[in-house]
């Protein structure tokens, strides 16, 4: 029983990590319909930002979060404004190719500058955990879980209760009509992309405190984010939380009770089933066509 509870806890925490770095992917897809292939590179950049600040200036990883947020926001904003915006109305294939190209540029530039070394951010409190009647809860992962909840709640609030959020939603629903209503589409898209990048960068910063980081780590993160978003519903931001949690729990229970090798296979089987049975995601609120 204890093993089950521990495995469930691991799964929920892992799910929180998945959700934290997938929410931005969902937001960007939902508003612009862009499948962002360099999503994983934004996780990597956030992680490296924290790594360098920690290594060179001994800044606590948690204190680097605001900087990670603003740096990635700026990157996302500029890339959308000056590069991706040019292909927003082109067929999806063009945006795949473009974002794939950006993925290669960032990953290989990082490789060139930082080399292929594996790095970790090991603080004096790395690996600290709470013992809840035998169930171990690592604090750093709990913090990421908290971030995932905060991000989803924050995005929900932003999208529904603020002027900018309503502009984003209106743009997502009908670009032409939003434009007629006076929404600055270019600005809205850039803001959305910046926001998606910013929360992804923050997730990357947190991830650096318990995962090994290296310049070419990005692609698996993009793939997981894609799975999470399909499970939770394409473009439905709170769905990232559901998708992440389901994926995390399924993978953890599989690794504990069956075989760790099967957890990857099961991820894709799950994805396949959801696409057939519930194409709008578990919550049924995603974009289908």
């Amino acid at each position, binding site marked *: 029983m204890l093993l089950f509870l521990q495995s469930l806890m*691991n799964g929920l925490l892992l799910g929180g990590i998945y959700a934290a770095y997938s929410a931005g992917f969902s937001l960007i897809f939902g508003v612009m319909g862009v499948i962002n292939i360099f999503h994983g590179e934004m996780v990597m950049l956030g992680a490296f930002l924290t790594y360098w600040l920690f290594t060179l200036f001994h800044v606590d990883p948690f204190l680097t979060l605001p900087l990670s947020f603003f740096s990635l926001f700026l990157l996302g904003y500029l890339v959308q404004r000056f590069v991706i915006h040019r292909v927003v109305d082109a067929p999806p294939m063009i945006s795949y190719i473009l974002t794939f190209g950006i993925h290669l540029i960032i990953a290989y530039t990082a490789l060139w500058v930082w*080399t*292929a070394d594996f790095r970790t951010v090991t603080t004096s409190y790395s*690996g600290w955990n709470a013992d809840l009647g035998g169930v171990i809860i690592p604090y750093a992962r709990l913090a990421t879980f908290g971030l995932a909840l905060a991000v989803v709640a924050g995005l929900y609030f932003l999208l529904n209760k603020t002027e900018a959020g309503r502009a984003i939603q209106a743009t997502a629903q009908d670009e032409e009509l939003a434009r007629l209503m006076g929404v600055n589409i270019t600005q809205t898209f850039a803001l959305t992309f910046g926001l998606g990048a910013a929360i992804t960068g923050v997730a990357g910063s947190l991830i650096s405190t318990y995962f*090994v980081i290296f310049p070419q780590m990005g692609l698996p993160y993009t793939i997981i984010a894609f799975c999470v978003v399909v499970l939770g519903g394409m473009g439905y931001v709170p769905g990232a939380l559901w998708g992440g949690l389901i994926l995390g729990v399924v*993978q953890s229970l599989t690794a504990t009770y069956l075989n*760790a090798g099967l957890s990857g296979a099961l991820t894709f089987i799950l994805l396949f089933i959801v696409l057939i049975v519930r194409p709008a995601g578990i919550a049924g609120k995603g974009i289908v066509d």
Partner: protein
Amino acid sequence: MGLKRGVSFGAILLCCLIVSTHGIASGQQKFRIGYADPLTGTFGRDGNLVKDAYNFWAELINAKGGIEVKGKRYPVELTVIDDKSNAAENAKFTEKLITEDKVDLILGGFGSDSVFAGSAVAEKYKYPLISGAASSDKLFERGFKYYFSTLGKATEEVRGCVDIVQILSPKPRTGAIIGSDILFTSLAAEGYKKYAVQDGIEIVHFELFPITLQDYNSILVKVKQKNPDLLFVGSHLMVAMKTVQGMKEIDFSPKMVAFSYGPTVPDFIKNLGKDSEYVVAASEWAPNLPYQDPLFGTAREFNENYYKKYGRYPDYVEAASAAGAYALQAAVQKLGITPPVKEEDRVRLMEELHRQHLMTFYGVVKFGADGANEAHPPVAVQVQNGKLVNVFPKEAAEAVPWYPMKPWKER
């Protein structure tokens, strides 16, 4: 007329220039040596170690004017091609080096998968290939004549890590084995099992997982539940780092944890800091061993000179790679082979390598009929106070093993 004469004169001058420069080029004969090696991708870090080792050897030999054959010196020119941690690419680039670049000799890169593919091409073109960074048993089971390795076989490489239980007190009784599912690490896992059984250790858990696995906590929770005295991990650097991080996160403290590869790479201690203490790792070389040769000097001198050049101490794979290049050099010198190296020279070279019994700073290099280095005792090292120290076998040990491992909560 004047113009015509001028053109003719110019043409003659040009011809003279070409002939003379060609003369200069052929006067500066050198050994062109190539290898395909992962410089990026999953094994990029490890592959760069091998590159550093070969460069270290080449610079040392070139500083003396090159390899001395029959009283004359021939410099070494190294060419490396990045196989991006992809075995198929390694085969392709090895073939390119041989057929297009027409290199005189080749060397082995990092990792069993890459070397497995590359050495098949080398065998086809009769190029002896010595590797110092690949040791999967399969490499030696193909009946190849041109493949050599300064390392022992993967299953035997981990013997020191297991046999160390003979000197531990109180003697451990149970062990768990996990490892990533690629060639080298899965063989290391088999090796652990083989020697653990011989040492009377009961294996309570055995599992291989995909190398792409992102989160290790769930699998480690399962192992923790079975409460083994020892944890053996079939690993490369990243797997080893992730395992230690995961063990700490879920508070799993067996009495000893051992890795097949990873902790000897300098990044391991640098990244994990105090969390790397007590970790045991397989090794085939340590700088305190009493070996030496005329080029590199003693094992300790190799270690110090390496530090002077790169600002870090070498891993055993780097020692093994440098020793491999040295073994090739020694065979070339003995046979009096000069560049350009022809096919019949390479056949003689292969035969010589099979006969060779060479003392090096890395230990004796003596290739068996299957190409594996027979003369090499596996050792176990442990991280103690931020340094790797040789703890087994007892005759070669610098320190007694720290045992049992201090639980995470008490550190």
